[in-house]
């Protein structure tokens, strides 16, 4: 990770990254040239030349490729893994007392009689085009349902992120500013407690107070097409508040740790000993180094938010992806479960990749793996 070793010079930018490139342990061994950009005769394949000229673009491309590969592996796991697990869908679906003929019929009906490789290829082919087949339970198109619900879920997660990110970063900085003093200790204890609260408990607590006792919020948080924007906002007030509370504590603690890590490093101490003002230290020395970890923290928590949406949607009866998936799991509606699982995993992988890439852009040292 980002150990805070002393910098050898001024914070390197894009330009200096090229000069120090040969230090990176390339297995192929790029010849060390002082100014590679001006030198056109670098041997090797196209990719090697590309990594040499544009190390940043190459790294980003590499991460993108890695994520696509990972997503592919995940799809294989969600589909293939389920096939490998014991238990037959048709018998589970019909119950133990089903006649063999009925089981046979339903297997044919759902296309389970074909080999799984064939079904996987057609499933993945459809999934790329947004067609996830039809639901076993309702016989509706899964893709259609998801396109409606995904928007709702993202709407919820977007507003939760909009509130929680600035709040978490602000509180984290406040905790660092007053480190080991009363405000820091209060924030520490409260956030430790908040981490331990299950999402549904927070949700019902909020419903109990704000919807039932005071009657200022609405429950259940149902949204439908004919609602105006402001009506929607007031409907999602409580779910958003729940998500914010759940994510905030985590994000804040991680922000605090990330900033503290930078502030306790040798170069900040040096700057302090030089007699620089606190503002100058933070603006010129600490902030550029703290950006990467903080961005990382935010992206990781946004990924967490995507998953946290599942429980919150069930609590508030909100018509989103999470509710759809949980309902499908209880009736063992596999096409829906697989589609939702894949989409959730895709968001999770994408956000983690974004965190990775942003960290590389913000911190040039990460461009040169040991």
């Amino acid at each position, binding site marked *: 990770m980002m150990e805070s070793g002393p910098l050898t010079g001024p914070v390197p930018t894009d330009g200096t990254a090229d000069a120090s490139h040969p230090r990176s342990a390339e297995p192929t061994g790029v010849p060390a040239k002082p100014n590679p950009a001006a030198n056109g005769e670098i041997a090797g394949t196209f990719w090697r030349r590309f990594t040499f000229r544009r190390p940043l673009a190459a790294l980003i491309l590499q991460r993108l490729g890695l994520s696509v590969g*990972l997503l592919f592996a995940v799809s294989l796991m969600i589909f293939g893994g389920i096939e490998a697990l014991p238990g037959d869908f048709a018998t589970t679906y019909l119950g133990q007392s089903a006649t063999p003929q009925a089981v046979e019929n339903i297997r044919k009906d759902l296309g389970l009689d074909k080999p799984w490789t064939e079904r996987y290829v057609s499933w993945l082919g459809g999934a790329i085009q947004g067609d996830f087949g039809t639901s076993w339970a309702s016989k509706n198109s899964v893709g259609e349902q998801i396109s409606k619900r995904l928007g709702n879920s993202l709407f919820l997660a977007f507003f939760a992120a909009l509130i929680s990110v600035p709040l978490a970063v602000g509180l984290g900085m406040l905790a660092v500013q007053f480190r080991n003093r009363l405000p820091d200790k209060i924030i520490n204890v409260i956030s430790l407690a908040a981490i331990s609260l*299950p999402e549904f*408990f927070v949700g019902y607590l909020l419903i109990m107070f704000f919807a039932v006792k005071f009657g200022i919020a609405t429950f259940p948080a149902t949204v439908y097409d004919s609602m105006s924007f402001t009506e929607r906002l007031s409907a999602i007030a409580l779910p958003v508040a729940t998500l914010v509370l759940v994510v905030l504590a985590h994000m804040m603690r991680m922000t605090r740790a990330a900033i503290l890590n930078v502030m306790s490093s040798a170069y900040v101490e040096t700057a302090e000993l030089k007699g620089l003002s606190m503002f100058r230290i933070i603006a010129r020395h600490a902030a550029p180094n703290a950006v990467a970890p903080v961005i990382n923290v935010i992206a990781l928590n946004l990924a967490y938010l995507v*998953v946290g949406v599942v429980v919150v949607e*069930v609590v508030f009866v909100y018509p989103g992806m999470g509710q759809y998936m949980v309902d499908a799991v209880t009736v063992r509606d596999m096409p829906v*479960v697989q589609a939702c699982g894949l989409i959730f995993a895709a968001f999770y992988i994408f956000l983690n990749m974004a965190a990775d890439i942003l960290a590389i852009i913000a911190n040039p040292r990460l461009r040169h793996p040991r």
Partner: protein
Amino acid sequence: MNLRSIPLSAWIGIAGIAIAIFCAVFAPLIAPFGERDVVGDIWLPAGGDFLLGTDNLGRDLLSRLIYGARTTIFVALAATVLSFSLGMLLSFTAAVVGGFTDQLFSRFNDLMMAIPTLIFALVVLAVLPQHLWILILVMAVLDSTRVFRIGRAVALDVAVMEFVEAARLRGEGSLWIIFREILPNTLSPLLAEFGLRFAFSILFLSTLSFLGLGIQPPAADWGGMVKDNKDGIIFGISAALIPGAAIATLAICVNLVVDWLMKRTSSLKGGRGDA
């Protein structure tokens, strides 16, 4: 270590955990009513015969809470112990053997961690039949990915020490090195991690039960009790909040103890793997 050096917050945590374990162990002796007995009207308010009121079927809430401690703690603890055994064994093997084995385990672990835990559990539980041991196994396998990552990092630090090298030169086998050299030296940071994973297990189990995929009725379990009583919330009946508060309290207590353990071992290396 003397008892005075333990801070107040850790004492509160230890006390809370002790009470919960006491309830779990002696449930039939303390509980005023049976786990599944319908003893009164539905959703009676707290007080009178029923200290915390009754639930959606007229069962005594306090009794179910006490029996629920049993199920919740047992399943969460079993899953955590299993996940630790699995994760530590695999991670130490990866760290000691290295090479291809290490790569194989680590890459597979990365793949498992690329899917969010809850989503993974939902997908898997949709297929598998509903048994208690399957639930424990699924929770353990999913959690062991986090243990693996931390275990490997900690073990790698130890595996390059001189005494491990000395053991290798002496001709000791991999198993001996894992259990006699690495395990004792990594126990302290991993103990804090165990507490953290246990707290996470309690929350995870409660979430699954709340979604109707964890422990099946009529067995009492805190997450499932929230699910049973959630419809009362709209009428201002707080029966669902009581088991919720129990989950939160237990998780906070465990976290208080973990926080203290972390501070004690913070000089040793050991990442904190929040899911």
